[in-house]
């Protein structure tokens, strides 16, 4: 397939809190290819957002990247200074956050907020800036952009605010866009509009998109490849269709079976127990306390990523013997 633009190798990001060291991301490796839509799924605390923040170098205190590599276009980003990272942020790698109400500055007009991004990276005249802002707002489908660009965020609805945030992220045509739960704060009909917009823009601009979400429905619709995370580690990487058809990791399979679907009723399977505490994560495979297939080996040793098929990797000792049910197969009837 096409070339890799970002490669994450054994990334470790820990948070040094008073209660102890939280191993939020603990040895995560995957790659993002040019022009693809990659899904990053997992429950809260699985480390999806921290992975994205590590790439952008915006891990909040007391968090720190303590190991691993993040290679973007042949360049390792780990260990770079703030000054060295600035030209990348916004220009090469951009991000859309979950809650547009708090990611836009309430004190500035929409025009100013987008202009700031432009001026931070490029020399542009006032007139050029204005034109570009107009272009961008039109691109993301804000009606009557000439008047709306002079308004403040509070005058926009949730869906419209997210469109502004998307316009701001795309201002400099980044090659890689992280969308961190971009529609969680929105209503379903507005969510569908924003997802359509993102898909459309991705195609037009040819960028790579990383969708971070816990919604298996959005993953199915939007992505071509998926990375499944659990408790700070990657447990499975596969093409979206393969993942839903033939999941290889017990966590992926139970997660799929636990999600209700609209087009039919099904028996919801339960993942017993709770998400582990990351200060003292379980030994061995992190999923073993909740896994019904776990044996002593799973308790002791940490499984490595193994290739189980074309573009399909899994970190599970027992993948060969297990027959797991996917979601695409109609196993209810």
């Amino acid at each position, binding site marked *: 397939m096409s070339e890799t633009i970002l490669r994450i190798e054994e990334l470790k990001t820990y948070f040094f809190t008073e209660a102890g060291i939280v191993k939020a991301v603990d040895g995560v490796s995957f790659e993002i290819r040019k022009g693809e839509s990659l899904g990053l799924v997992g429950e809260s605390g699985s480390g999806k957002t921290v992975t994205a923040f590590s790439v952008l170098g915006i891990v909040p205190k007391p968090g720190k990247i303590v190991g691993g590599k993040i290679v973007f276009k042949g360049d390792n980003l780990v260990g770079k200074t703030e000054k060295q990272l600035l030209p990348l942020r916004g220009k090469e790698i951009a991000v859309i956050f979950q809650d547009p109400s708090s990611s836009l500055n309430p004190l500035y007009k929409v025009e100013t907020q987008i202009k700031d991004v432009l001026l931070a990276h490029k020399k542009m005249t006032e007139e050029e800036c204005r034109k570009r802002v107009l272009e961008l707002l039109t691109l993301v489908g804000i009606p009557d952009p000439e008047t709306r660009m002079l308004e403040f965020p509070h005058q926009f609805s949730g869906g419209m605010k997210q469109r502004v945030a998307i316009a701001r992220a795309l201002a400099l045509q980044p090659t890689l866009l992280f969308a961190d739960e971009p529609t969680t704060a929105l209503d*379903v009909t507005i969510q*569908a509009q924003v997802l359509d917009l993102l898909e459309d823009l991705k195609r037009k601009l040819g960028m790579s998109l990383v969708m971070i979400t816990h919604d298996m429905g959005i993953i*199915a*619709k939007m992505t071509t490849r998926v990375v499944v995370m659990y408790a700070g580690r990657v447990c499975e990487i596969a093409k979206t269709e393969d993942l839903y058809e033939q999941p290889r990791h017990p966590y992926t399979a139970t997660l799929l079976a*636990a999600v209700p679907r609209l087009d039919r009723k099904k028996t919801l399977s339960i993942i017993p127990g709770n998400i582990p505490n990351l200060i003292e994560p379980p030994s061995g495979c992190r999923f073993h306390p909740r896994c019904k297939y776990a044996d002593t080996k799973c308790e002791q040793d940490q499984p490595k990523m193994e290739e189980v098929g074309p573009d399909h990797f899994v970190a599970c000792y027992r993948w060969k013997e297990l027959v797991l049910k996917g979601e695409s197969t109609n196993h209810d009837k």
Partner: protein
Amino acid sequence: MTNESYLEVKHLVKYFPVYSTGVLTKKQVGKVHAVDDISFDIRKQETFALVGESGCGKTTTARVILNLIEPTSGEVYVDNENIFKKFQSADKQEKMKIRRKLQMIFQNPYGSLDPRMTVCDIISEPFVIHGHLPKEKRCERVYELLELVGLEEYHAERYPHEFSGGQRQRICIARALAVEPEFIIADEPVSSLDVSIRAQILNLLGNLQKTMGLSYLYISHDLSSVRQISHRVGVMYLGKIVELADTDELFDSPLHPYTQALIEAVPIPDPKIKNIKAGLSGEVPSPITPPAGCRFNPRCPYASAECREQSPELTEVKKGHYIACIRERT
């Protein structure tokens, strides 16, 4: 589920006044039409779901039914008794009797449990308020309730912060069950929980219904979970019910354009089905100045001049399937 109705809502209306922001004078300049003349009934041992987007009036409906806020007008009957009259009557005993029958589970288990009380205190508080259980039996009953919702005896001495979201929601359920209610309103009980935990709570609610014969009003914006646990569904839009039908009927053959668009907008966790589309343009109008005629007409792809003038009534078009749309009748 039986066919006997347990709770009946008749022409319920709730407006919230909007005031101008004067310094000395406070003048009412309008009202939020939060719930605008809705009627439905909930049967014994049934789960009735109210769905809709934020601001459509689902939660207000729940709060008005429980008289946590006063209705503007309308009535609610429980077992053919007008409960609003009882709530207004001075007799405290009568009021408590109704309160014992109707309980609520809130959306956010982090906000609905007092952080300074132990689980035992939280679950036994209803016993103190209603006084229906002698002191010496309370502890035993707390253990029973904990077991019922899948927690252990030793959890009783702990504080809410020691629990995860799913476990907290279990505590909330145990508290609601403490007074042996007949009817529970669950307001988005799983939306703040993780996917793997959601299924646990949904299954728990289903099992409790079977063993204890409870009726539920389940309020949610998550259509997939509604399909999973409810028997009948009412779809709300801007304070009105636009469609009401049995769950399978509603999801398999929705008739109102809003319901259709809502269902189409939900992504299905199966990459082979890429059906979702943004059928609706625009956003929900302000409930302070709702559009004239059918409230959905500015966003409706089929709206005609008639829709802008006439406000359609909820009418039965098939057995048990009601919609409020002019087009469907002709």
